[in-house]
């Protein structure tokens, strides 16, 4: 593990000498975000090259589904790019453990990021960070503001208000109260359980306690979100059991549903589809009692690290420092509304809905999805089991208590708290 660092340091001293006018060094970025190719080429890279004329950057994405396999093959063959876009948690941790991602703990820009933001790209003990956090997605509820105004409804802040709003929409009958289906399962877990859950398990406190083994999935705080999900059933559209994710998106964008439990990544998708048909608003997951601290899932999704075998570690680090800077956060956040920079820097976003989402970071405590770190390493896989359990609970075929007991039993069968750091 230490070797790459030494190599990097040696390379630094070697390069420090002749800093005269040279041809620019070319850095290549490996990424799965091929959707963002235009944004990188037109906005981000020109901005970087303008201030760093000695470095030329090339963004070379692969298709998302092939990325992990292609990257591993390239890294093994020594033909991977200098900069590596990092998947969160285990996929990148494995690369670091193999010595293929460089340790970036000492990067100055790391000070711009909170511990939660860095946790997706750290060793289990948090001692080494190997990717610079780039973006996260925030969960919450997007709603049809025009419909709310029509029915005289306010954004709910507590769970009781939330259900009162749902009741009123249902009573009125013009709109489906909430657009969600259980066919694809992941929405139930990601946009349901992981969306409302942090308010019950107090964000990081509960998530860490679960990893430490001091809390169990059968504890009240972890069962309560399932209990709320079970109540959602009555407010979903007819035949929600067979409703898919695109169905739910369409129900909302066509103005047939009033509330859409979601994540911020939809902003960029919904904007052009809805156009001027109606106005969108967003509210964070409602808390149990008025005045409670609110918690949001601000899930770390994309980071960027350095290939330990790069020929230009110095320039690569320069680029990474820039990625950690407020300037990058500003550029990236506006180019991709809904993918929020993880930096602590104050960022002004142009999109009002994106502004709304990011403003929750000031009011609420941030956490990440509870199943992503460490707890989904074994079989049965906790994340995938949670999909199934959440969908079952919403459909009413499994009680919240049974679902929680099943998840805990599955987790206990392979996970022994305390051994995680090894």
């Amino acid at each position, binding site marked *: 593990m230490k070797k790459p660092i030494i190599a990097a340091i040696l390379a630094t001293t070697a390069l420090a000498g002749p800093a005269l006018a040279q041809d620019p060094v070319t850095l290549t970025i490996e990424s799965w975000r091929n959707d963002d190719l235009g944004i990188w080429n037109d906005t981000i890279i020109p901005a970087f090259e303008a201030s760093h004329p000695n470095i030329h950057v090339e963004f070379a994405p692969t298709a998302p589904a092939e990325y992990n396999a292609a990257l591993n093959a390239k890294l093994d063959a020594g033909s991977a790019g200098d900069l590596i876009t990092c998947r969160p948690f285990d996929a990148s941790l494995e690369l670091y453990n193999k010595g293929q991602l460089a340790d970036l703990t000492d990067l100055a820009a790391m000070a711009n990021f909170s511990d939660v933001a860095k946790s997706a790209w750290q060793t289990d003990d948090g001692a080494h960070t190997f990717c610079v956090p780039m973006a996260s997605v925030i969960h919450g509820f997007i709603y049809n503001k025009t419909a709310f105004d029509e029915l005289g409804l306010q954004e709910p802040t507590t769970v009781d208000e939330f259900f009162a709003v749902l009741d009123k929409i249902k009573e009125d009958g013009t709109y489906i109260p909430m657009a969600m289906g259980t066919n694809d*399962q992941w929405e139930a877990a990601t946009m349901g359980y992981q969306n409302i859950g942090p308010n019950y398990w107090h964000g990081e406190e509960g998530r860490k306690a679960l990893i430490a083994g001091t809390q169990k999935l059968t504890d009240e705080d972890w069962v309560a979100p399932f209990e709320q999900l079970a109540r959602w059933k009555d407010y979903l559209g007819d035949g929600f059991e067979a409703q898919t994710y695109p169905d739910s998106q369409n*129900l909302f964008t066509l103005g047939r549903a009033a509330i859409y439990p979601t994540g911020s990544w939809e902003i960029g998708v919904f904007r052009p589809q809805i156009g001027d048909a109606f106005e969108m608003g967003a509210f964070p997951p409602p808390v149990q009692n008025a005045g409670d601290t609110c918690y949001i899932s601000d899930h770390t999704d994309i980071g960027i690290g350095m290939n330990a075998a790069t020929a230009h570690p110095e320039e690569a680090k320069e680029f990474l420092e820039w990625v950690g800077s407020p300037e990058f956060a500003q550029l990236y956040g506006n180019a991709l509304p809904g993918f929020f920079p993880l930096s602590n820097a104050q960022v002004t976003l142009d999109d009002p809905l994106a502004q709304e989402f990011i403003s929750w970071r000031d009011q609420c405590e941030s956490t990440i999805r509870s199943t992503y770190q460490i707890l989904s390493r074994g079989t049965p896989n906790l994340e995938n089991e949670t999909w199934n359990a959440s969908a079952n609970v919403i459909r009413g075929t499994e009680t919240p208590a049974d679902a929680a007991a099943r998840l805990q039993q599955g987790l206990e069968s392979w996970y022994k708290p305390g051994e995680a750091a090894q």
Partner: protein
Amino acid sequence: MAARRATRWHIAVFLAPAVLVYTAVMILPLFGTLNLSLYRAEGFVGLANFRTLFGDPHWSEQFWNALRNNVWFFIIHMLVQNPIGILLAALLSSPRLRLAAFYRTAIFIPTILSFVIVGFVWKLILSPIWGIAPSMLQAVGLKFLFQPFLGQEETALTTLALISVWQFVGIPMMLIYAALLSIPDEVLEAAEMDGITGWSRFWKVQLPLILPAIGIISILTFVGNFNAFDLIYVAQGALAGPNFATDILGTFLYRTFFGFQLQLGDPNMGAAIATAMFLIILAGVCVYLFAIQTRLRRYQF
């Protein structure tokens, strides 16, 4: 002077391409898979993977669930697809039927469609939100019969099996149709002379003559169903929802071998499942070959 015949090299030469290609793309991978199932990341472990698969409740529960669903999938095909296929073939071979070529083509077309198209089209037809199934039922006042068929544990698997039947009913139809056409007119005329016509001709003369074809269709259906994967994956995803109600051996294998979402792939356990599938299919085919096929009487015309 019967000189000993020279070694007939041409036989080996002509067989070689097929044998080599088949060995390279079928036999070697098959043994590779069997071999893989005896290893774990740490090395050779004997039958430990199978002990996990059948002994660990988390694995065995999923395996038996997938097998049960697979058997049900097969039963639906045998009870619905093949009788309908035979019926259609019998109707098509009737000389009084007009437009027979058109029907034959129309019924056979779904078979050549991609699974992706079939899965997607049926998902849309049955969609409670946009589908034409609910509105058509409403038009005839039967809306109460509509349910989100693909989203309920009780109905999802049967619905998917019926979609698969819709897609593949053309194959038994064509095979039986060909078998029916190969029955010489003399046989049928002789039956007619004996006063056997209409349906009784079908039951007493034609059906016994096409039994070998039905046997072949059954075994093709068996192998096809126990290797099925595509339709379920397209319609319900790798987690084969709702609550694994549509999980069959193919989707279970895929999930295990390639991994899914945060679950990393496990090639060794995947190979163990593939081996179990291979043995199940092998057993089924053996039962057919030795217990059924040998008892079928064949008629030469």
